[in-house]
């Protein structure tokens, strides 16, 4: 009988812990971007092509100002591969047909800024 209670207790404990894990905190990049200045600015994101086919790699450059900048890159569909911090390669496989968003966040001790661009992907001919 004691064993039974222990097992039930453990199951509830594990479930509670897992549910707690699932409550993700909001990203710190959701608001409060700094105004562009010589201390930190993200001037533009420039892709080598905006309209591409599946499995066609392109290069995206981030033009910035400031020192000690770190970069965070993300996309909703497709694959990003870091070339160096301020540039990145992008390609889309066949399940990523459509208009895909690429986001770049730059950050240093003065704050952060972010920008997005859209890459249009169609089937490989």
């Amino acid at each position, binding site marked *: *009988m004691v*064993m*039974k209670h222990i*097992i039930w207790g453990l*199951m509830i404990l*594990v*479930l509670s812990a*897992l*549910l707690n*894990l*699932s409550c993700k905190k909001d*990203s710190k990049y959701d608001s409060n971007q700094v105004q562009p200045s010589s201390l930190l600015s993200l001037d533009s994101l420039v892709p080598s092509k905006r309209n591409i086919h*599946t*499995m066609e*790699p392109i290069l995206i450059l981030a033009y910035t100002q400031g020192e000690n900048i*770190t*970069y*965070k*890159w*993300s*996309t*909703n*569909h*497709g*694959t*990003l*591969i*870091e070339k160096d*911090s301020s540039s*990145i*390669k992008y*390609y889309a*496989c*066949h*399940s990523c*047909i*459509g208009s895909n*968003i690429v*986001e770049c966040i730059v950050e240093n001790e003065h704050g952060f800024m972010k920008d*997005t661009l859209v890459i249009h992907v169609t089937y*490989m001919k």
Partner: protein
Amino acid sequence: MSRLLWGVAMFFLGIMTSFAQCCSAGNPVGSNGFEEGLTKNQLRFISYFKQSNSDKYYHKDSYFNQPIINSSSFSFWFLSSSYGITKNLSLNSDIGYFFDKSQELTINSSPLKIASSGFGDFGLSLRYNNIDDENNTQWNLFVGSKLPVGAFEEEIDGVLIPLSLQPSSGAFRYNVGGFYGKYFPRTGFGLSTSLIFESSLWIKKEYIIYKYGNYMQYIVNGSYLWRKFLFISSLKMDYRFKDLRDNDLIVESSGGFALIFSPRIQYQVIPNWELLFQFEQPLYRYVNGFQIVNKMSFFAGVMFNLNLCKKNEE
């Protein structure tokens, strides 16, 4: 005695890998492979290590050469616990951890690897069991859910890795299913069948708006019990509908059909403990559009059974 035989013979497996598992986010979909019900106060733990590999890209039912993706693979650890609450109801929970979920690529002649690791999804299900010892039959129905508690924002050097390589699916999923089996004690043979349906909710996370296609799995199993060995052969039919993304756009290169042969061996080492080994080999597949597909997979693990009621009586 017949119940004991049932307890062993009804370890019919489901497949744990869909046709595109090497390129899917989250835990392997479908049945966890153990469809039999538990009786009151029966406790079971299952733990195994699974390896899955793929180096084939498909268009419909044929190979397709593409220039970038060389291979996909994952190494996965799984743990589940089940408990018989009453004579007819049992509760199951499970979780998995990806040691390595990766893809090897070649871009502009440069090889590279994208990899992630972390916890996958957490599964919880309730099963209604009906065990008929006199006729050596059993059927059960279950409802369950998978919660995306694991890692879904894995990144490498500040770069978010693709959705398909994230350990967690990022979506709540619900599943229902049923199982029927019959065992023939005089010969040691058993037959069973099961059906599973799984549906997913939308992922709505920043720019990612996505819904995995509904999934169905039908399994036919044959088993043979010989001394401490249980041999099981399964034929599994997977069908997945197409995914959806933002603006209800249909993802044409998603979903499909697969027919998979899967043998399994179980060996009872000592009372309550069994070793498990399973292999999976696709026989036929048809994918919508272009997709990387699972080539082969296997798992090896252990299973522990305990009847708490009997333990207390002792």
